[in-house]
């Protein structure tokens, strides 16, 4: 299990390389985006006169758009072809030899049992930039080259609206989901009746703090916004650069359920965050774990699975689901429009909802497992563990509230608001005022 306990430096280097990939991706992406109008761009008059970027998902934009309005029939119902191309986030599956996710025991077992050979890539760094890389293909009605991609709930909502996802029949093709998933994950607001997606893993955006640097016990968001507190910990407070996370945080503090927030609520949330901003060290993405473990940050917004892993380096670190509530985000598997191997994709979705498979993955991933039955299996693995170290680790996973949240915790969790395009622009601009001094 030492895989999990990567050293700080290794993690920083992994992040550094990932940032490198982001910048390359951004470059490629802009090249791809350019392609949308470069067709006209090669003749100068065409640019000056005609150039406009076609609307996404409109009938004029191609087959994908046309299908968004008609009710398409679900894909699947056939035999797997033997090939599956899977795009996921990094560190999001149990890896095999040499920390190689392609050699994952789960994927090997999937091949042995179902006979499908999976090409697994960790191409997804964040929702927006990955979406940007596949959007031109989806818009043109071309296959993206992926059969399963994993996207966060609000992006699933966006992609459904744009007609970019294949419809599925979970009752027919993913029966294990209906049998084994926790009720909280069925029929979500971003994808009613799970017509397009089933969860991969989920997590909570809450607060983490380092008791070595903080005198008080942190239990609420109010403490992160209280003038005396932020003055005291000025420059040691971290917030998230992801608009939905930070805005939902302020909304919950203001007593608003983020799912039902109005523009006026969002403006009030901006004001709440602006009052705090002078004392915030920075607005972080994935990399917030570095300043936090290096003790540059005393209190920070945090994702539950990260804190579970950071606790192996420093058991004193605390994760809190604030009294005011928090957001439970869900990363979902879905089939992009025009995928070439939908039957294999559905077979994979069904496979990972077997409790023993879910347990095997959760033992490594440490985020919230959508299959409650996995908890007993992990307990059993702990009892059978050969070394004391492994037993201790597996018990920690099985009994952790960050992996299997209690009812009390779940009752305080909300989702992100599903924003339409205009709202998303308005909210982004409000949050830019906070994030950019």
């Amino acid at each position, binding site marked *: 299990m030492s895989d999990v306990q990567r050293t700080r430096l290794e993690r*920083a*280097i992994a*992040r*550094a*390389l990932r*940032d*490198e990939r982001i*910048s390359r991706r*951004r470059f490629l*992406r*802009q090249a791809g*985006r*350019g392609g949308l*109008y*470069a067709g006209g*761009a*090669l003749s*100068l008059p065409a*640019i*000056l*006169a*005609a*150039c*406009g*970027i*076609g*609307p*996404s*998902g*409109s009938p004029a934009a191609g087959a994908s758009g046309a299908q968004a309005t008609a009710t398409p029939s679900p894909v699947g119902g056939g035999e797997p072809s033997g090939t599956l191309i899977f795009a996921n986030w990094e560190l999001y599956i149990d890896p095999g030899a040499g920390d190689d996710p392609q050699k994952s025991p789960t994927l090997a077992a999937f091949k042995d049992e179902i006979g499908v050979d999976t090409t697994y890539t960790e191409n997804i760094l964040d929702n*927006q*930039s990955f979406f*940007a890389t596949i959007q031109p293909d989806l818009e043109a009605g071309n296959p993206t080259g992926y059969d399963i991609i994993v996207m966060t709930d609000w992006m699933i909502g966006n992609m459904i609206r*744009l007609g970019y996802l294949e419809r599925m029949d979970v009752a027919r093709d993913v029966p294990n989901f209906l049998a084994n998933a926790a009720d909280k994950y069925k029929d979500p607001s971003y994808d009613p009746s799970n017509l397009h997606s089933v969860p991969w893993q989920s997590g909570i955006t809450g607060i983490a703090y380092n008791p070595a640097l903080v005198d008080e016990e942190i239990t609420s968001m109010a403490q992160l916004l209280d003038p005396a507190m932020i003055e005291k910990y000025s*420059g040691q407070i971290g917030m998230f650069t992801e*608009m939905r996370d930070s805005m939902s945080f302020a909304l919950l503090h203001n007593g608003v359920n983020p799912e039902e927030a109005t523009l006026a609520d969002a403006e009030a949330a901006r004001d709440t965050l602006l009052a705090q*901003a002078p004392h*915030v*060290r*920075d*607005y972080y993405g994935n990399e917030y774990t*570095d*300043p936090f473990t*290096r*003790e*540059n940050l005393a209190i920070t917004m945090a994702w539950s699975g990260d804190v579970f892993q950071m606790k192996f380096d420093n058991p004193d670190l605390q994760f809190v689901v604030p009294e005011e509530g928090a957001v439970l985000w869900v990363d979902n598997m879905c089939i992009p429009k025009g995928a070439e191997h939908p039957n294999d994709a559905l077979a994979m979705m069904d496979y990972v909802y077997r409790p023993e498979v879910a347990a095997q993955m959760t033992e490594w991933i440490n985020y919230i497992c959508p299959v409650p039955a996995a908890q007993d299996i992990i307990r059993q693995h702990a009892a059978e563990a050969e070394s004391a170290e492994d037993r201790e680790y597996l018990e920690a996973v099985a009994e952790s509230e960050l992996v299997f949240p209690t009812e009390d915790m779940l009752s305080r969790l909300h989702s992100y608001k599903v924003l339409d*395009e*205009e709202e998303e*622009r308005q909210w*982004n*601009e409000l949050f*830019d005022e*906070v*994030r*950019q*001094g």
Partner: protein
Amino acid sequence: MSGWLRRHRGLIPYLFLLPGGLWLIVFFLVPIVTMASVALQEGSLGTGYRLTFNFGIFPEAIARSDTQLIRSLLFGLIVTALALLIGYPMAYTIAFRGGRYKSILLLLVILPFFTSFIIRTISWQFILADNGFLLGTLKGFGWLDERFRLLATPIAVISGITYNFLPFVVLPLYVALEKIDHRLIEAATDLYASRLQAFLRVTLPLSLPGVFAASLLSFIPAVGDYINAELLGSRNETMIGNVIQGLYLVNNDYPRASALSLILMVGILISVFIYIRVLRGQELTV
């Protein structure tokens, strides 16, 4: 073919210009025109963009990001000045005192390029961490306040950019200084100039083309840089590059992002123009 060329001898220079010209058209002119076109469009990803010649976007974009624009130009100026102050003595020493170690010293200047720009900047996060190698030691001796920090301050961002662009300053300065005929300096001292006078009146003016090239090579990328502000800074160090990046990739606000990119280009051109006017009368090309 050769007969045809002989008859149209006047076309030969244009033929030589063709590859470079095509390159400029495809990779400079077309993107610029496209960007200008996008800046003047209105709409969104969902509804599509239409060219409406919305020139109002330019004052709007400036008004909403004036702080970051001014900050970027200011950081660019400070970085250029610092890089020249640090780089000139380096280049001078290598050119005049390097002796047989010249090539090794030059290699050392270029060596950081063997590692990715991003990794080098990330390593600054380690060096400057609040309780890291540097500050942790100083705080341990009680020489600094416990809460003192460098990360997430303008000092960290400016130092980071200066460090990253220093080689671009040293190399052109070295080339300019290396070309100076030592006998001119000897002649100056023979004519009773002190070493300082010889430097100020002979060496420095002769190296001005290098100073000019070095300033442009640090100022222009420094103003547009966003990596250092992102990795070493905080909201109070947000530069125009970060704003443009966010508008393109997070907000999908292509018109405003394109408008800001154009404004940045014009801003840099104006600064460079002023700079040329100031140095007017000097031979600026090597």
